[in-house]
């Protein structure tokens, strides 16, 4: 572990809420509004943390554990994900599976906490979340497996430091497919349009938002924060692939990756302002399509 490798989790922890601000600002500009300040997510987090919590009498410890375990899982995951060419502080063979399952743990506890409230709406959201996740997780794992096969390593840091310009020219078709698949995973896992609409509060269409309706105060802050960090982490996996700047210089690589992250946030904002949420039946097709792309990429790559 080198001092430079701290920069990858540190930037995830500090800059993740900013990314959401960029997306919101993009949407506001596209809609002709001024929009909230870029740092609004930090203000929201600070406000929520100062509030007190209200627990329903029907809930048990599971409901209280949900946000805490979710936050813990996502914080562990920050230690595994490299930022572009900057390696993560914690890297070992097979850490990509740990990463995928930490995100799975976050989801599991969000879902269980939602079910624990006994609210039918939250149950509906949980059901949808799990349905889509069952299709999105294989896509993520297949995409990571394809990169692992190209570079010949099962560690996220080694994998992503191997994705450079020469590798791109060698396997451009496979990497382009993987980029497409990871964009779909990024949008689906973070509940962005066209899979889920983060701003909707219409009961029948919500997926992620409906699961956290009963949480408040610091619990909601934890959920919000885990959400933005997860956005950052999946974004980092995408940017590490599509911005192949690997100069070996930590500051340059890091700056390129962070610029890429902001680019991804802007593109997310543009996607969200230019298209509507899809009907729920269309979403699995979208995810299966991404699955086909990553299978094809996996077949195309030769280690």
């Amino acid at each position, binding site marked *: 572990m080198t001092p430079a490798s701290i920069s990858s989790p540190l930037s995830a922890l500090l800059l993740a809420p900013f990314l959401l601000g960029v997306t919101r600002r993009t949407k506001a500009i596209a809609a002709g509004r001024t929009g909230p300040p870029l740092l609004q997510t930090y203000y929201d987090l600070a406000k929520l943390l100062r509030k007190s919590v209200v627990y329903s009498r029907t809930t048990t410890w599971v409901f209280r554990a949900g946000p805490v375990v979710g936050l813990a899982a996502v914080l562990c995951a920050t230690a595994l994900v490299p930022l572009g060419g900057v390696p993560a502080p914690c890297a070992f063979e097979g850490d990509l599976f740990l990463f995928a399952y930490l995100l799975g743990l976050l989801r599991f506890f969000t879902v269980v906490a939602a079910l624990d409230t006994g609210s039918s709406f939250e149950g509906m959201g949980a059901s949808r979340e799990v349905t889509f996740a069952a299709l999105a997780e294989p896509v993520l794992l297949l995409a990571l497996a394809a990169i692992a096969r190209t570079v010949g390593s099962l560690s996220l840091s080694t994998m992503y430091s191997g994705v450079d310009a020469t590798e791109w020219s060698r396997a451009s078709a496979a990497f382009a497919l993987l980029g497409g698949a990871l964009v779909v995973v990024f949008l689906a896992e973070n509940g962005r349009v066209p899979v889920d609409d983060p701003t909707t509060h219409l009961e029948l269409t919500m997926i992620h938002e409906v699961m956290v309706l009963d949480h408040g105060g610091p619990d909601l802050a934890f959920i919000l924060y885990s959400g933005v960090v997860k956005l950052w982490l999946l974004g980092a996996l995408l940017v590490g692939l599509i911005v192949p700047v690997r100069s070996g210089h930590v500051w340059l690589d890091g700056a390129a990756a962070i610029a890429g992250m902001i680019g991804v946030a802007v593109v997310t904002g543009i996607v969200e302002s230019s298209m509507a949420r899809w009907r729920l039946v269309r979403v699995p097709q979208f995810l299966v399509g991404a699955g*086909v792309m990553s*299978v*094809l990429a996996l077949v195309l790559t030769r280690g």
Partner: protein
Amino acid sequence: MGAGVDPALVLLALTSVLLLGSSRLTRGIRIVAFQGILLGGLTVAAHAHELSARVVALALLILALKGAAFPWLLSRVLQRADVRREVEPLVSYIISMMAGTLALAFSFWLSARLPLPSLPISTLAVPVALFTTQVGLFLIVSRRTALMQVLAYLVLENGIYTFGVGVVQGTPMIVELGILLDVFVAVFVMGIAIFHINREFDHIDANQLTLLTDWTG
């Protein structure tokens, strides 16, 4: 082998998957038209090192027929036959796409074991050709609308053509032209048949055609 071969083949496979998941006939026609354009490009890309007037003429003919004439003909039929614009699947779109994923894996498995007379232009050529053919067959049996079956037939033909371009270098021009002419006549006849079926029965549901009979016993 040209640089554009692999991207064209990947796009061909992806558009086939897209067709498995699309519910609208107009969209299906557009996808098949795009596949026609891809095949025209593939023909040129496959012969990039020895580009002759013969190859260019064939590519242009494919572009004109598969990329323009067939889509135009089929959209005309669709407009004339004022039917529901949905493909009416017997197998749901998601299951179709998952079957497509399996078919893709199967094609790669099969092509690795297939003894070929000559080296294909790309390692992707044979699997993608097999996959496209399978998608065509699958769509013929799993969609009820007659127009979709014509599209599926075209996809099937696209797969066979890809196999030809990928494996057999230098098919005689006369053979290629003969096949194209056959396909053209087939699509033409099917287009007219669909129009007549629709005028007689107010639908183009191929399933109900089994009720057609002289025997009234």
